């Protein structure tokens, strides 16, 4: 089988100083060339949208081998808002931004030349999804908004075209996170969009007493998420009703994908705010059934609802099964739903130590990545309370919080230094190897502030990063289950909160000198690579049979 593989080996020199210690060393900064500030435009009216943006994506939009950064902006909010609602985005400070990474690690703002300037005018920005929906080899962008969502087709020449109308994916209402995945394994990426609630600025509420404050989601009606099926002709069909997704209204914020029961079809986990979480089991026939409660992945260990915000659906304990971590508000602790096999989950917050790490914090963007390349996925959470005046309600809580980095030590997470103790209102988080040094970096968004880049200075341990090249499956192999030396990752760009991560699959290998790679493609093909050299970026092409 090996002889049928196309392997492109890009072994890069590790220029950064080697960290031989246990925990990774992060250098935290806003890179040169990035002049973005997330304009959430807080008002005295406390419109709930103000505290909810914004997403960040790590993608290589021009296929030059370097990850670029796309950040979603909020927009201008009048105080008070009038009808018809219009979030003026003409001023460049309200634009979403695309930053192309240069070879020296700096960035260049290419928003205008890419055709992405001013294009969200009228909408208030939320999140971003990345996926090559037309399998042309260039990642496309889907931006969620309060208002109409926008699909940008990557033209492959450094520019994008708004194809929303043609594709039929504008949606409406309040969309938050989104993700591309191939739910019917037809080789074309479909699209899932979470929506938060039925809300508009004219029906906003103020839940403060002597002071203004944002209202909890329970004050507003639930709404449906949206599932779009990719017809393969660059148009999508809204199959929310047909698929059964419409049967479950909620307060959707985050979304993540993985095949939790090994039936070969990608399932959907939606983090809902202030209620039970939803696990949509993919029936393989175009329909989904919500099974969160029966599967034990809907409520916390005491049967309480969760203020689910971010979510990650990956295998933290290397048992080959995807687990779920949901970030929440303080006093709830982040939920760790361990996949026990047989289609059921159990709350492992206590055993993993995550309960102890998250009692008084609010989590948004979240990732399970092996930051120290020891073969175990670590936890990173972008944190900051939802209420910008929470101290008035509970002085023991804080709006601005540090990020959380917790190293996985045999299934137990221990706090580590993320490289900064700065307090911030962080929201989105995307993960990927920005400088191709074999160590995973992080980019987070911060309300009212520039994004923060956590450059991982690496260590001495080995690694392997795979780029999947689907042929029968979708071109990026999203949905593939990939095992390397006993570790498992589910290929996805989705997860976290409102954000999209590097499509490449990174594995820390510790002291291993070679790797055995098993790829279970969405097409059903099982591909095996033996004795793979470590410390390389490897593109693996799906056998065409």
């Amino acid at each position, binding site marked *: 089988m090996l002889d049928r593989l196309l392997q492109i080996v890009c072994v890069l020199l590790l220029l950064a100083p080697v960290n031989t210690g246990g925990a990774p060393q992060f250098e935290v900064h806003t890179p040169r060339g990035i002049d973005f500030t997330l304009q959430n435009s807080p008002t005295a009216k406390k419109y709930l949208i103000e505290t909810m943006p914004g997403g960040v994506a790590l993608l290589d939009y021009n296929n030059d081998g370097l990850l670029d950064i796309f950040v979603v902006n909020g927009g201008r909010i009048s105080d008070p808002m009038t009808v018809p609602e219009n979030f003026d985005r003409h001023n460049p400070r309200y634009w979403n931004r695309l930053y192309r990474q240069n070879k020296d690690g700096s960035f260049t703002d290419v928003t205008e030349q890419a055709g992405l300037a001013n294009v969200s005018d009228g909408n208030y920005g939320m999140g971003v999804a990345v996926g090559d929906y037309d399998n042309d080899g260039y990642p496309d962008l889907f931006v969620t908004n309060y208002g109409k969502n926008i699909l940008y087709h990557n033209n492959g020449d450094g520019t994008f075209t708004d194809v929303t109308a043609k594709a039929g994916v504008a949606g409406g209402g309040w969309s938050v996170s989104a993700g591309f995945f191939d739910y019917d394994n037809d080789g074309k990426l479909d699209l899932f969009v979470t929506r938060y609630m039925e809300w508009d600025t004219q029906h906003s509420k103020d839940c403060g007493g002597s002071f203004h404050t944002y209202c909890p989601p329970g004050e507003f009606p639930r709404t449906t998420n949206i599932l779009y099926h990719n017809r393969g002709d660059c148009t999508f069909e809204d199959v929310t009703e047909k698929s059964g997704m419409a049967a479950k209204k909620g307060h959707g914020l985050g979304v993540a994908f993985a095949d939790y029961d090994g039936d070969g079809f990608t399932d959907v986990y939606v983090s809902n705010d202030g209620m039970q979480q939803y696990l949509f089991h993919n029936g393989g026939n175009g329909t989904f059934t919500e099974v969160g409660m029966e599967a034990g992945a809907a409520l916390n*260990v*005491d049967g309480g609802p969760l203020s689910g915000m971010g979510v990650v659906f990956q295998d933290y304990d290397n048992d080959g099964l995807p687990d779920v971590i949901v970030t929440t508000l303080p006093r709830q602790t982040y939920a760790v739903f361990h996949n026990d096999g047989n289609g059921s989950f159990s709350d492992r917050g206590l*055993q993993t130590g995550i309960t*102890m790490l998250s009692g008084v914090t609010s989590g948004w963007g979240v990732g399970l990545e092996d930051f120290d390349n020891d073969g175990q996925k670590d936890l990173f959470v972008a944190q900051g309370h939802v209420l910008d005046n929470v101290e008035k309600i509970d002085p023991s809580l804080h709006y601005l919080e540090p990020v959380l980095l917790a190293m996985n030590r045999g299934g137990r997470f221990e706090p580590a230094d993320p490289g900064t103790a700065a307090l911030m209102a962080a929201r989105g988080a995307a993960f990927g190897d920005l400088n191709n040094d074999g160590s995973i970096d992080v980019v987070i968004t911060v309300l009212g502030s520039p994004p923060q880049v956590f450059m991982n200075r690496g260590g001495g341990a080995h690694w392997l990063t795979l780029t999947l090249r689907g042929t029968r499956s979708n071109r990026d192999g999203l949905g593939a289950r990939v095992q390397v030396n006993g570790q498992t990752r589910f290929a996805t760009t989705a997860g976290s909160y409102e954000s999209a991560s590097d499509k490449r699959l990174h594995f820390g290998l510790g002291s291993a000198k070679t790797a055995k790679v098993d790829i279970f493609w969405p097409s059903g093909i099982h591909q095996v690579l033996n004795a793979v050299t470590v410390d390389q970026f490897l593109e693996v092409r799906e056998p065409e049979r």
Partner: protein
Amino acid sequence: MYLTKNRAGSRLQIVLIFCLLSPLVLAGQTISPEATKHWNAARRDEAQKQFAPAVSEYRKVTELEPTFAAGFVSLGQAVMEQHDFASAVAPLKHALELDSTLVPAHQLLGYALLAQGYAVEAIQHLERAHEQGALGIAQVQTGQFADAITNLQAALQKRPNDPDLLYYLGRASGLLSKQSIDTLLAAYPDSARASQAMAENYFVLRQMPEDEKLYQQALQQRPDIPNLHLELGQVFAATSRWPQAEEQFRAESKIQPGNAEAAYRLGDALLHQGKTKEARSALERADKLQPQMPETLYSLGKADLLEGNAPAAEKCWLELLSIEKEGELAAQTHFALAALYRKQGKTVDAEREMKEFQKLQNNGASPPS
């Protein structure tokens, strides 16, 4: 201490008054046939809840028989039935001038005065009438909290779970506590107890940094005071600083090895850190010190399950449900049992427990979010 009577208080008092009104008995006096005619007419009107004509008839009785004390009492009572407490005072006072031993007159006058906020004046009449409930309420209003507590408790013996009496007992207890603390803070502002008292207030306000500082101050002065470590531990627990909480609960358990709460909280802190074996040991100790505590049983079940002892967890939780069938903890326990049975493949049992969980949730039990 003078307390301003609030509207809710007035309403409650009026309710009490009419609960306690009872037909008055003629005090063995003989009255003229004409007065008797009016008396009977008044009684008929009263029976038909026609209080205005009853007042008119009683008034004629008192005019015809100006020394007939019971006539004035009945007049006062009928006036009060019309919620006119101010007008009831004069005939009731006159009745007592005629016969100062007339208990119903004292009773009604006490209520009439209390309803108008004249608590000090009401007390002497309520004392004479042995109306401990109303007397307790009047004493709350006049700042006699200790006496109020005694009388309200005695009244509750006769009318257990009376919401008005329970409310005033709670209020009296709280105010007595505040009075004691105010005295303590004024007399010994730098004492360990003063720090502890202030710290308790900060805890309620969730001002944890100030709270912690005060507890530390108190501990520096008197490290042996019972409950100080326990309370400081709760400050750490409330801010998810579980190792520090554990340290304090351990210290409390050393000072008070017989304190079940200290053992329970130590177990809980250990459980939060995933130290399940130690947690189990502390929770078992708490269970021995104070058996059948639902909170202990719930956490002990959790620790058992985390230690891989599902039968022991099930036993704890079933015992809990035999004690507590309603409310938040019962709901949580049904949910935990459902998860346990699901893992064991006992689908029917799991579904049954989930139904119980959902039933309790629908009934208003809301497990912590």
